[in-house]
Each structure stands twice: as structure tokens, then as C-alpha cells.
């Protein structure tokens, strides 16, 4: 009786594994190019990728140890009658020391390394804002349901003037130049998300947030919205075109000339830009 029950449970395990294998086969039928993080096209994305790698290795080791103990105990130490379990409350000094030791090794080894690297990365890179010396490209982002508005200052270097280049879902940037982005939102919270730059930043109505990055590889990348912003949240995405300095300047010049021609002082909704200096 007991034997057949065990068998039935084993069969259930097989059936369950089989069902999930069917699900898996649907994936293998159409093998993907890559399921990893998208191509990193930024100067500093590799720092984030390094942290990913370190964390994956560290928790991978911990997980394998944990799973091995769990599976070993479950399979090998089943109650088959006969002798009793070990009578051990684990309150002796050596037990407590062992727990303390293992926890500290994990905390200082894994969390400590991550904390140190993150502090360095944040203070020296991600939260070290570009200064005038770095000559960053300055961009204003204005999020609204469900588009990204971008504003570049134009030749005069000042925002909210007639020569500003204002685009919708279409951001152009020069390669190998830091980009300093200031973000606000018109209606609800959005999140400015650049997967290829490994970075994102929320956009709030009523306040201004910022981020910076430096694209290093020309190409077209996606600008997504990461924060649920209503029914058409999934449609809120644009393109970021990273091009050579000359191409970028030619584009900026053409667009700026056209913008001046189109400028309408009376259209107050279009003047959402704001003046700022680094």
C-alpha cells in the first residue's frame, strides 16, 4: 500500500515534469538569439554587468549548496524506521559560533563586496553628475501619456527658446559624449528606461529628476517606459539614435532651422521647456 502511494507520487512528479517539458519544447522549437541582457552600448554599463556577474556567481554557489543539502537530506535521511534522529537543539556555543561564522562570511564576502563596489560606482559614476567641463549634451525629457517629448537646446545653448529642437519619441545623440538628461512629467509617473544603457529614472509630475550616461556605439536603441502609466503604457516607447558627431550636428542644424521657422509664440503648450544650467 505504502509502496504504491510512493509510486503514484513519483508518477505525478513525472507527469508534472512532462507537462513542463512540453512547455519547454515550445521554446526549443524556436531558439532565441539571446535571452541575456540586451547589448550594452554605454561607457559604464559594464560596471553594472560586472555586478551582475559577481552576484550571479556568489548566489549561484550559495544556492547550489542550499539545494544540495536540502535534496540530500530529503532523499538520504528519510525515516525508514529503526534508529532515531539526532537529538540536537543546536544551542551550544560551537553551534552558535558556526551560525555566526557562516552568516558573517556570507555578509562580508558577498554583501560587503557588492556594497563596496556599488558605493564606488554610484559616487564615481552613476551619481557623479557631468559638469560644464565635460561638455555634455543636455536633454530635457517631458513624459506624458503616452509619448516621450525630447528637447535639445539648439545652437544658442539655451532651453525654451525658438531654436530648440523638440521631437516626439525620437531622440538623437552624438556618440562618445556624456548626455545629461533632466526629466519631468505632465500627468502621471513614467519611467525613462534605456535598457541598452542599463539605466532608468522615474519621471514625476511637479518635480525634475535627472540621469546621465554616455553612449559609445552608434546605432538605434529603444527608449521605454518602465512605470505603469495607464492603458497604453505598453505603447509608450521611442527611439534613441546614436550617431557620429558630424551626423548629429547636421541633424541638429536642419531641425533647428525648421523649428525656428515653425515657432509659434502663442502656442503655450509647446513651451514646456525650462531654463537650466549645469
Amino acid at each position: 500500500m505504502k509502496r504504491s502511494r510512493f509510486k503514484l507520487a513519483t508518477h505525478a512528479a513525472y507527469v508534472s515534469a512532462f507537462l513542463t517539458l512540453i512547455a519547454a519544447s515550445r521554446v526549443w522549437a524556436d531558439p532565441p538569439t539571446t535571452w541575456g541582457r540586451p547589448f550594452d552600448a554605454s561607457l559604464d554599463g559594464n560596471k553594472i554587468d560586472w555586478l551582475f556577474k559577481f552576484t550571479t556567481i556568489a548566489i549561484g554557489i550559495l544556492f547550489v549548496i542550499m539545494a544540495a543539502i536540502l535534496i540530500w537530506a530529503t532523499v538520504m535521511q528519510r525515516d525508514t524506521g529503526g534508529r532515531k534522529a539526532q537529538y540536537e537543539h543546536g544551542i551550544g556555543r560551537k553551534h552558535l559560533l558556526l551560525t555566526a561564522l557562516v552568516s558573517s562570511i556570507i555578509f562580508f564576502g558577498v554583501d560587503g563586496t557588492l556594497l563596496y563596489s556599488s558605493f564606488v560606482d554610484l559616487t564615481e559614476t552613476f551619481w557623479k553628475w557631468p559638469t560644464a567641463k565635460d561638455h555634455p549634451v543636455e536633454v530635457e525629457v517631458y513624459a506624458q501619456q503616452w509619448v516621450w517629448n525630447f528637447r535639445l537646446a539648439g545652437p544658442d545653448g539655451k532651453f525654451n527658446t525658438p531654436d530648440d529642437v523638440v521631437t516626439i519619441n525620437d531622440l538623437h545623440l552624438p556618440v562618445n559624449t556624456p548626455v545629461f538628461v533632466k526629466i519631468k512629467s505632465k500627468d502621471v509617473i513614467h519611467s525613462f528606461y534605456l535598457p541598452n544603457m542599463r539605466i532608468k529614472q522615474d519621471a514625476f509630475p511637479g518635480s525634475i529628476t535627472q540621469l546621465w550616461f554616455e553612449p559609445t556605439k552608434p546605432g538605434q536603441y529603444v527608449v521605454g517606459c518602465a512605470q505603469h502609466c495607464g492603458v497604453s503604457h505598453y505603447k509608450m516607447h521611442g527611439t534613441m539614435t546614436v550617431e557620429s558627431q558630424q551626423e548629429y550636428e547636421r541633424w541638429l542644424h536642419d531641425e533647428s532651422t525648421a523649428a525656428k521657422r515653425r515657432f509659434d509664440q502663442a502656442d503655450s503648450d509647446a513651451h514646456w521647456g525650462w531654463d537650466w544650467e549645469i
Partner: protein
Amino acid sequence: MESHEHDQDHDEQHIHPEPTSFIRKYIFSMDHKVIAKQFIWLGLSFLFLGGTMAMMIRWQLANPGVPFPIIGKWVFAGSNGIVSPAAYTSLFTMHGTIMIFFAITPIMIGGYGNFCIPLMIGARDMVFPTLNMLSFWAQFTSSCVLVASFFVPMGAAAAGWTSYATLSTQLGTPGWGQTMWVIAIFLAGMSTIMGAVNYITTVIRLRAPGMTWFKMPLTVWGLWLTAILNALFVPVLGSAAILLFLDRTFGTHFFLAGAMVKGGGDPLLYQHLFWIFGHPEVYILILPAWGIISDILSFFARKPAYSYKVTALAMVAICVLSAVVYGHHMFVTSMSPLLGESFMVLTMIISVPACVLFLNWLHTIWQGRLRLTAPMLFSLGLVFVFGLGGLTGIYLADIPTDLYLHDTYFVVGHFHLTMAAAVFLGAFASIYFWFPKMFGRQFNHTWAKVHFWLSFIPINMVFCGMLVIGNAGMQRRLYNPNEYELFRHLHPLNVFISYSAFALYFGQIPFIINFFYSVFFGKKAEQNPWEVTTLEWTHASSPPVHHNYDVIPTVLNGPHEFSNPLVTDKDWLGQCEPLPSAAVVAEKKPAG
């Protein structure tokens, strides 16, 4: 507190006669055991509803634009059975809300909190039986409001379960649905607070003689700590709900700002209030399960819980830390660098008590004699999925990696592993473990094990798939991720997750059949079928009488006296059983 002082401190509990009318006995009951069942029935119904909604979400992600099979033509009548974008936003909003506030909370806290606390500490009932009844009916009223919100014009709430302002104000989600969501959350919060006050006081005042703090089962520790967190932090959610309600109905501007409204409020204020509650909430949901499986692992490994006191204290430490880490939900809101880094450090510190818990669980089963009953399998499964979920949390605690992962499916995979998969398995461990005591009948053990494997394998497939797809960059809450060219190649992975989810959903059928069949027709259960040590098994009948114990037992031992070599006739010693007298003498000698 020493056990001999405890007698004076123990509140006198009178035996009240059992009510005889149907209404007082089963509907407006003040008996904690009946209220526990009411909460569990309510919670299981909502678990089914929330699970069905998850299937609709997964259907849309696997087969965008294909009508939902069978029930689609009624549920999504306006769009020919296709899940529309508006319906989709409502689905993920209500799925989250239902699972957290209307499934897990009623089952684990309302249900097992009510059932276990008085029985396990040797009390006749909760200290405030009327409040206990009100707690259930507040939850029931809240459930009615929530269900009704599906049928109002413009549909149910759609701003996400977090309902961030300003999307959750009239600006983003006009209509009654979102307002009713706020009311339902407030009422559910009231219910939770009433329960919490009751649990805290009951544990402090009504422990049986000899039941000192460190003789309490870890189940009671988990539930008691949860109650404390609830009493402290649910009011914060209540305040956020009130302000949101005022913004929605009375035109105040607490959270409104920006060009659309010219308001002077701050949408970030909502996030602070929400997460001051929201982070403790994830521990509120998991702590009962932690406590329960800490006991179950020891019970079925036939071995004392390793470092019992340390496990209890680690849970206390996690409770304290849970109050000061909420900022890690807001790393990309542009908070001050100093604040962000402080939250990062504090979050990482939680890994210390969490690591201690894991070490103690693993040590508990190591060198044990494991009885792989259904509750034990579910508990071992919990350790596995929580390990996976907890470890993946490290990526999110770390600000640079969170800059990339925030609001992606990685987050969804992580929190589902920790507070959905783990609590799900913990809930079934509890259901199977206390089933004989609760209903006085035995369930079918074989089908319970079948149910375990049909749950455990797909649940890992679903949420690990989400980790992978999130790592690839896909955001959460996208109606159709194929809108992004970048994610189109991930579609097979989405299909895989969805089909695994369907397998998980249909894997619950053995449970439903087994549960209903056994409640009515199961074999009569013995008093202590599991051969364990705690009071409800050793001193109360299955099911317990109305006043639980004819005589309140006096507790002598801790809850995990297994395989004591001094006990020769069996491998366990009940909490009220003295050690064989010769052995006591032998043990006392060296001390004296």
C-alpha cells in the same frame, strides 16, 4: 518570565456554553475555530479568483489578441473575448490586490492565526471574541466592495496594486472602480488591525501555565510578530488610503502635481506612505509561513528545531529591520544619494538574519529522520523557493543593478518567489498539517503528494522564467511586450511561462477534489495523527471541543522534543509530558 510565576499572571478563562442557533454558531460566530474556517473559505475563494485572473494575464502575454478560451466571451464580452488593454490593466491590478489582501492575508493570518494561536498556547479562545467576529465581517464587507467594483461603469481599479498617485487619482483612473478599491483596502486594513490587536493581546495574556515565551511553538512566534507589524504599519496604509480617497472624491491635492492639474501636492508622498507599509507587508505575509514551516520541519524531521531561540530572535530582527528598508522600492525616484545608500546598506543587513534562518532550517533537517508527508514536502518546497527568491533579492537591493532591473519582470519573478510561491506552499503546508485537527477528518495523503509535485515543479518554472525574461529587460505590466522590437525574440519565453502557469493552475484540481471530499467524507482523524508535541495535538480532540480544553494543560517542555534518548517508548515528548522520572533525576543530578 519563569514558569512558576506564570500562574498568577494567567488570565482566568471561563467555559462558555456553546451557542445552539445556526446563526450564532456558524455565521456570526465568536469561536476562533469557526472564524478561522470562515477566513479560510473566503481566502480560498479569492485565491481561485486571483489565480484565474493570473491565467488571463498569462493568456494575453502568450497569445496576444487571441480570444480567451471558454469563459472569454462572457468575461470580455465587449471585446469579442479578447483581453483588452483596459481589461488587462484591471486584471493585474486586481490580481495583486486580491492575492495579497484577500487571499494570503485571510488564509495565513485570519485563518491560521485564528486557529493556531489559542490552541497552541493553550487558551480557550481569543481574548476579544467579539472583536474577532467583527474582524471577519469587516473583511467580508471589504470583499463585497471589491467584487462589486468589477461591475461599475468604467470597470475595476487599474492603477496597479500599488496604485501610485497620480495615476490612481481622477487624473489617471476616473470612475468608481478605483474609489471602491480604496474603500476596500481601508476596510481590509481595519479587519487586519482588529485581528492584530486580538492576536498580540491573546499571546501576551492567555498563554497556558508554563508556556513561557521560549516554549511557544515557532508558529505562534511568526503569527505574533506578524500581528505586531500589522498593528504598526497597516495604519500607515490606511492614512495613504484616506488621503487618496480625499483626492479622488473631494478634490484635495495631497498627491496631485504637474502641468495637468496645477496642484501643489506631491505624488512621491504617496509612495513613501505606501512603502512604509508595503515593505513590512511582505514580511507580514511571509512570517506566519516561516514560523509554521520552522515547526513542521522539526516535527517531520523528528528532530528538535535547531537553535530554536535564535530562529525566534532572527524573526524579531527581521521585523525590526523590515521597518527601515522600505526605500529600496524607490531607488529610481531620485532620492538623496545618502538616503539611497543608507537604504541599500540596511537592506543588505537583512541578509544576516535571513541567512541565520536558512542555516537553522537546514540544520534542523540534517541528520533527521524525515517523514515525507504532504506538509513536510510543502515545507521543504518553501525553503527551496524562498532560497531562490531571497537570493535573487540581492540584485534588487544593490542600487546599480536595480537601476537596470527596477520595474522589470525580474522584480515580478523575485517577489512572486518570495511572497507568492513561498506563501502558497506555506499555506498548503498549513492546510494539510492542520486539516485533521480542523475538520476532524483525514485527507487523502497520496493525492496531497501528487498535488505537491504538480505545484512545486511548475511554480519554479513560472517564476524562474520571469527572472530570465526580466534580466533580458522586459518591463512588467506591458499589455503586449511585442510592441517593443527589443523583446520580440523573448516571445517563446513568455509562452513557456504562460504554459507553465496553466500547468500550475490545473495542478490545483487534485487539491480541490481532495479537500472537499475529505471535509465531508474523509476518514475520521485521530487526536494526534502526526505524533507531534504541541498542545492542540496532545490535549485537544480532533476537531477540538467548543472551549478547546476541558482543563488548561500545564506546559513543561519546549515544542520540539523529538528523538530524546531518555524517552524510550516513542520518538517524541508532548509539551506537557514529564520526562520519565528516572531520567529527570539523572538529568538533575549534575546541575544540582
